[in-house]
């Protein structure tokens, strides 16, 4: 029942918002709905019963509307439901920029993502997968930056190609299930496929997930999209939506196609590692806050992917934790980027500087988040990255060693960012900057607290995943 509510509330409130014209009430309603979702998701954390939901859907196809809430989905739903109130909070004082439709679409997107995390029926999974994408398309295209239309379109088509191929994979698996075919994940798990078939399906499905995550060299949609999308949407995209890909790999790919996973893990890890270095190097040369965070995100996701395919407990655990942590951290970074862009009117490092004098609170919070971004110990990211690297190390020393170079590169670009935005003397653009308003402060502090608490004491998170 919880799982159903987690989807239902955002959907209903999202649809309702399309009929609300008053902006103030729209904001309040959306905040309320997202907080309600968060509350349910928190309640569900400790709940042992009422987690699953199942109903007939398309009997002739053997598709069921079945949702299940296991440890991993709990965590990701939590991430999803945390992110939205934070985002709403951070844009609460933005007057006139976002209409009620914006909030409606955001909630619908949340519902879609939630569904992806919850679905235990492949067809339903696919549905939610797309449902999450479409609001994103509209959000980015309507409220995005200058080149929003083309960029979002590229993003949409790119991911759509992937998801169609995934659909083929799903159908193929479905046709392999015994008896009257079924989309149930349990039936998928119990499939015994020949390795040839597995490899084919793996290629199809992994393509979709690789695009979503994104893994080098399928990432080229991502920096543009993140740059052009309205920042609240970027937060969801990079904080939560990319986790869909990772999540899908963990839940829908590896257990279903174990042989193929073994067969391809080398290639996947190689790609991930290349991607990490590649993205890190490019991030160093970026002059745009958003693009830099985007590339940094590619690097981090690369590590998560590599860790998952390392086929070790450490790696997997680390990846799971890191999915959560990366989400939190990157949302924080985006909030900062958003604030900077809104206040100063530019995102270019070369036009920024000295902001720390004008906005010390922002500076401090960003510094914490930045160091979390490079996985400094005592921030939550450290735990995840530590475990992931250790898993990767177990898999192959050289991969781990090469991948670990990105730790250094990560420090380079993150510190570059901090330095160029906040340090030095003020420049003309930052002359009149002021510190952040209470709502953003609140949002960021909340994130920072999560980052630090889980950095010092990550066991609740680990236990949650393993429950």
């Amino acid at each position, binding site marked *: 029942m919880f799982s159903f509510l987690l989807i239902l509330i955002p959907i209903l409130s999202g649809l309702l918002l399309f009929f609300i014209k008053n902006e103030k009430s729209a904001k309040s309603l959306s905040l309320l709905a997202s907080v309600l979702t968060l509350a349910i998701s928190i309640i569900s954390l400790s709940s042992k019963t009422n987690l699953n939901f199942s109903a007939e859907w398309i009997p002739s196809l053997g598709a069921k509307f079945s949702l299940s809430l296991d440890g991993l989905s709990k965590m990701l739903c939590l991430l999803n439901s945390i992110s939205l109130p934070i985002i709403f909070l951070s844009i609460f004082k933005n007057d006139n920029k976002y209409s009620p439709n914006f909030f409606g679409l955001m909630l619908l997107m949340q519902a879609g993502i939630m569904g992806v995390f919850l679905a235990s029926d492949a067809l339903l999974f696919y549905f939610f997968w797309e449902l999450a994408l479409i609001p994103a398309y509209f959000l980015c295209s309507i409220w995005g930056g200058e080149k929003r239309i083309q960029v979002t379109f*590229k993003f949409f*088509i*790119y991911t759509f190609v992937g998801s169609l191929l995934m659909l083929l994979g799903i159908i193929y698996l479905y046709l392999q299930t015994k008896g009257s075919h079924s989309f149930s994940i349990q039936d998928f798990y119990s499939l015994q496929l020949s390795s040839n078939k597995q490899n084919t399906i793996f290629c199809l499905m992994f393509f979709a997930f690789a695009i979503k995550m994104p893994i*080098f*060299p399928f*990432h*080229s*949609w991502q920096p*543009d999209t993140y740059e052009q999308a309205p920042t609240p949407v970027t937060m969801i995209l990079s904080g939560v939506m990319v986790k869909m890909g990772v999540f899908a790999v963990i839940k829908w790919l590896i257990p279903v196609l174990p042989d193929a996973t073994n067969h391809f893990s080398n290639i996947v890890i190689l790609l991930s590692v290349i991607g990490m270095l*590649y993205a890190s*190097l*490019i991030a*160093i*040369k*970026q002059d745009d806050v958003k693009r830099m965070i985007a590339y940094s995100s590619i690097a981090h996701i690369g590590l998560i992917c590599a860790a998952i395919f390392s086929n070790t*407990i*450490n790696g997997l*655990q680390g990846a799971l934790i890191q999915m959560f942590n990366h989400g939190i951290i990157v949302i924080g970074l985006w909030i900062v980027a958003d604030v900077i862009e809104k206040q100063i009117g530019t995102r270019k490092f070369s036009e920024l500087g*000295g902001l*720390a*004098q004008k906005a*010390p609170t922002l500076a*401090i919070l960003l*510094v914490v988040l930045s*160091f979390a971004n490079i996985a*400094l*110990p*005592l921030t939550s990211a*450290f*735990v995840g990255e*530590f*475990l992931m*690297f*250790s898993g990767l*190390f*177990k898999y192959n*020393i050289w991969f*781990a*060693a090469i991948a*670990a*170079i990105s*730790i*250094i590169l990560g*420090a*380079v670009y993150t*510190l*570059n960012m901090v*330095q160029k935005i*906040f*340090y*030095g*003397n003020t420049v003309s653009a930052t002359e009149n900057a002021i510190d952040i308003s209470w709502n953003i402060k609140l949002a960021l502090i909340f994130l920072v607290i999560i980052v630090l608490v889980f950095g*010092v*004491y*990550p*066991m609740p998170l*680990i236990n949650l995943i*393993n429950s």
Partner: protein
Amino acid sequence: MKIILAFIVLFPLAGFLVNGLFRNTRSKKSIAYYACSQIFSSFFLSCIAFYLVKNGGSEVVTYFDFIKISNLNISFSFQIDQLSALFLLIITGVGFLIHVYSAAYMHEEEPKHFARYFAYLNLFVFSMLILVLGANYVIMFMGWEGVGLCSYLLVGYWFKNNNYNYAAKKAFIMNRIGDLGFLLAVFWIINKLGTVGYTEVFAKAATLSTFDVTAITMLLFVGAMGKSAQIPLYTWLPDAMAGPTPVSALIHAATMVTAGIYMIARSNVLFSMSAITMNLITIIGLATALLSATIAIKQNDIKKVLAYSTVSQLGYMFLGLGVGAYTGAVFHVMTHAFFKALLFLGAGSVIHAMHHEQDIRNMGGLKKKLPITHLTFLLGCFAISGIPPFSGFFSKDEILAAAFASNPIYWVLGVVGAAMTAFYMFRLYATTFLGNFRGTKVQELHLHESPKAMTYPLIILAILSVVGGLIGIPEILGGNHQLHHFLSSVLTSEKPIHINHNTEFLLMATSVVIAVIAILFAVNKFSKKPELSEAKGLGKIFANKWYVDELYEKIIVIPLLAIATFLKNIVEKSGIDGIVNGVGKYIQYSARQIRLVQNGQVGSYVLFMVLAFIIMILIWVNDGHIYKFLTQLF
């Protein structure tokens, strides 16, 4: 003990939080008092802990599970034993003095920045305590990175100056390179032993193959290189002098940079198992000691001289570690903490007096204006030069003796380094304090002795520098080397030094004599007419730090950035994104072409149909062949 240790760590943390969070509302005075009191409380508890340990209270206390998954259990636990207790004292003790000193030194800052400074400083102490207290490599790594962070924050404390920021960034990144090695070593340990706790690791160390041990220790040593500024990762330390001088004293002389030595000493069981690593450590240490000593000779920035001197001294410590004289190294860490902190603080006092003038060519004759500073600085110089009975003598001598036992050439080189140390220190001393004042009139007018908050720490440190060596008086000089005994239960792999007393005495005397000669030469040369002209020949190379920074810039930074630019502009734009966009463009292009077939003429439409029909018939007639061909194709 559990509570004591927790509070040792928590006091600085509380100081950080309170000063950090309420920095806008509090007065400078309360900030300073609060920060100092936290550290003092910590120091006080450390003393208790030390006392308890001295009476056999070594233990590992576990607070909670940090990471616990099926096959790996990393607990958040502290280990208090002789080694960590000693370091606790050094950190909190010297740290307290420097806090007090800072309160005066930084008085010009605005309250909120003042608070920020103390918050960082407290955070540093906190991290450093975590580093030394951690009962496993992961907790140590936490502190390890934490001190790196604080170093970054403090070096870049004056964030308006971008040069300082670059220095801070450089420090952090070079540290990260080292950290990478550390981290890989930890992974290796986890991979082979499944645990990271010191006790478990050392207990199981015997099961490791030689290769594994060598790899692990090498990687750990890489970590130490980064943190303790050894070749090739030492260049950040001189740059890190951009931070406030007390910071240099605390972080870049007394404590953080010695973390590498602490770590190796802590892992002495592992290191002793790998002769290759030990040799490498020796060589690197020695090379660093000599290289940085040569550079120090030609530096004109008071802090830079001290910085290179620190690098050089750290090299000595590594030499000691490399030859198995762990106690010697730790001993030198301690004495070095005293005298180098003293020297830095003294330098700070000078800089303070000179209104942030750091070039020694513009100083001179400060002896009279700054008597206390002068005196304490001189004592510090004696200590570092290894003049008996100052503390440096004992510790350095122990290392040199061990080096001699290992290989006499090491000793020779070590003594050469020591001579250079004596030389440049007294060059610094002479240029700064002796002779005539060479600064501007304004500076001269404002020259004044520092306030008590600054001089008292100097005095205390001077006393420690003088007497600090007494806890490690070797047997040959009639002592019984209390430190050695104290640490013996931790540093189990200590290599005993087997040289007869005569030789040892001779060596000692030789080194002292050489040092004295160097001192006399330096004082003689620089007290009257300091070297103001541009250096030439070898001196120029020294002055330009062997062009190592430039070399790094050329072979690492520039190619890396070039690659990054190439990736960004060529591979990403034209390559990967180009392919994706190319697909789109190609589709549009082909759309433009294919639509031309639709030429609007019925005749050609029908022609296409007829041709297609003919082809269909032909396919149908030859279907067998085509099918076979296709099946072979796919």
